[in-house]
């Protein structure tokens, strides 16, 4: 089996599992919608306030939803030993685990991108910022998934690692949050957003390329 075939089979297995246990993938999205619904109730339904804080709310909710899905990335494979098998294979582990990152993105990042116009509508974001919001999510969420995989691999052997995962992941998420919200805000004010989106894309490219190495190291550490 070549590395690419293995990669594909890992990905398709993850997707098939997700298709059979739909609640795992859907719950974080419902959580996200709930968080977004809570804000108008909390800060008042005035469209001005909501429009101003919308980019921040949507992105923070996206970060939290990503954290909810972190456990799913490796936990089952670790428990049934197939992760150990992946480590033993001659195919490069860093490449194989990147399939895990992709499946996490397909199940948590991509739905977010698709949902984003709805979220923008709920928070009465200016129409001019819709595109920027979707683009910022499209460019930023791959990096979120890659970082989430790092966090997941580092805390695998821990029984109660979820609080620790948030502690180590949120600082790493912050640069993304800053640039993404700034992009959506400037789009709302009718300014150019190329700069922020380019930086977001750069962060994503860098993270997605280098994260598999860190994830592979983390998985090896956890399995031993």
């Amino acid at each position, binding site marked *: 089996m070549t590395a690419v075939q293995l990669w594909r089979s890992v990905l398709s297995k993850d997707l098939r599992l997700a298709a059979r246990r739909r609640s795992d993938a859907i719950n974080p999205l419902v959580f996200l919608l709930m968080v977004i619904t809570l804000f108008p109730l909390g800060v008042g339904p005035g469209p001005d306030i909501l429009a101003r804080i919308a980019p921040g709310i949507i992105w923070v909710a996206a970060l939290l939803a990503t954290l909810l899905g972190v456990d799913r990335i490796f936990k089952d494979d670790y428990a049934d030993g197939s992760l150990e098998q992946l480590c033993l294979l001659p195919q490069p582990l860093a490449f194989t685990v990147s399939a895990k990152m992709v499946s996490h993105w397909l199940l948590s990042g991509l739905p977010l991108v698709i949902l984003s116009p709805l979220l923008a509508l709920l928070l009465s974001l200016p129409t001019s910022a819709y595109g920027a919001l979707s683009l910022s999510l499209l460019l930023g969420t791959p990096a979120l998934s890659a970082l989430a995989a*790092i966090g997941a691999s*580092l*805390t695998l*052997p*821990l029984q109660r*690692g979820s609080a*620790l995962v948030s*502690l*180590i992941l*949120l*600082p*790493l998420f*912050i*640069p993304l949050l*800053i640039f993404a919200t700034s992009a959506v805000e400037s789009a709302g004010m009718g300014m150019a957003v190329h700069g922020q989106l380019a930086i977001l894309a750069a962060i994503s490219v*860098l993270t997605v390329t280098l994260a598999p190495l*860190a994830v592979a*190291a*983390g998985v090896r*550490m*956890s399995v*031993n």
Partner: protein
Amino acid sequence: MWRWLHPYAKPEATYRLVDKLLPWFAGLTLISLLVGMVWGLAFAPADYQQGDSYRIIYIHVPAAIFSMGAYFGMAICGAIALIWQIKTAEWALPAIAPVGAAMTAIALFTGAIWGKPMWGTWWVWDARLTSELILLFLYIGVMALYAAFDDARTGAKAASILAIVGVVNLPIIHYSVEWWNTLHQGATITKFERPSIATSMLWPLLISLLGFMLLTATLVLMRYKNQLLKHELNRPWAQAELALDSRESAEETR
């Protein structure tokens, strides 16, 4: 070239080296900090814009620089620990992290205290302040991850990986002032251009920089000695070392 490093994979040899170096570091720290602080506080002229409040620079800038320097050193130790699987490098992580976190905390609150009279507010969500705060969280994350594992070696490996991943934050902190034009002023000292500070203010700053570097090193070495002893507690050399300690303290009380 590497041969002279080999003995220091052995904890006892490392301990002897650290023990020999520590008094020098501690002495030089004391001297340079004293000179730097007294010069900076009493002899350097007042700033024509900021008055005497700028004197906070003599702790703020060194602490900020070595909060990053300590992190970089920690990441290097992590890389060494991961690549060559050297235990003595793994134990450097819990020695460096608290010291670096302390430096970060110092940089943050001196910045806040300096910001109050200058900007009129304790805290702004300025890029550099925010990224320095992230650095503090990273330190806390590294310490928490190291402590979370029952097996110290697994914990050290996990913390090393996290430390290396977190290094990307360092350039973000460093260039934040140039990338975002926010409230925080630009760098005071640069290597390649003429510094934006008068020579009479620069000298004490350089000396306090040296002082803080040595201070960081001294504190790290003190903690590192403890780490070496902690992991080798069953070995005769560590027990002899600690027994020597108690004999000394007994003589002191007498």
